[in-house]
């Protein structure tokens, strides 16, 4: 069920558990699906320079990120036998313990959903122009770097 239009993946602030639950519920009428795979990225209260990360302020080159995500989406649909794929990423402030990334794939049998979900997460981290300013407990900040 690949689509040709560029979809927005960005949501302002954290991704709420209620939003995630709604997205799961929205698939109950798609009875050909036999397995969903979900990845949730959560902001971690890392120790940096002797201080604690209290939140991350996300920014992106939105236009480029959405084009890149569109290409990743098309390539993933071509590679895996997926029924559905949904991706949401936060912009703005997300506190430690809150969700900033939600990747949701579905397939008839479990394996394509699991494999595609894992690959999409890796590609998002490596290929999307998104930045995170980690706000520390004393209100200073450092720039997040993906490993």
């Amino acid at each position, binding site marked *: 069920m690949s689509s040709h239009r560029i979809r927005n993946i960005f949501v302002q602030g954290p991704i709420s558990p209620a939003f995630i639950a709604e997205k799961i519920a929205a698939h109950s009428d798609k009875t050909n699906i036999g397995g969903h795979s979900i990845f949730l*990225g959560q902001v971690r209260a890392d120790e940096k320079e002797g201080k604690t990360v209290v939140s991350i302020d*996300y*920014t*992106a*080159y939105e*236009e*480029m*990120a959405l*084009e890149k995500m569109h290409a990743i989406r098309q390539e993933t649909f071509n590679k895996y036998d997926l029924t559905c794929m949904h991706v949401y*990423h936060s912009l703005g402030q997300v506190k430690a313990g809150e969700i*900033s*990334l939600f990747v949701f794939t579905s397939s008839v049998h479990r394996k394509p959903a699991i494999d595609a979900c894992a690959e999409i*997460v890796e590609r*998002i*981290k*490596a*290929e*999307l*122009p*998104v*930045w*995170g*300013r980690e706000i520390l407990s004393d209100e200073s900040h450092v*720039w*997040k*770097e*993906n490993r």
Partner: protein
Amino acid sequence: MHPGKIKVLFFGQLAEMTGKSGMDLQDVTDTQAAIETLTRLYPRLSQTPFLLALDKEIVEGKIPFTGDHTLALLPPYAGG
């Protein structure tokens, strides 16, 4: 075609370092000349790793400008 207006975009720590989200450059012929001009304005650019996106495509080396373009300086990605 003559080089046109180059719209430069700064993101992440580069936006913080330059104190702006972007600026326009005139009379630069290629990506290398643009980076040289920007590094003269912001010497700390030379100590900051970044990728270059020309019209939203990652490019490397010296790419000539033909008309108006958007040139984005992208520090290491940190999505997720």
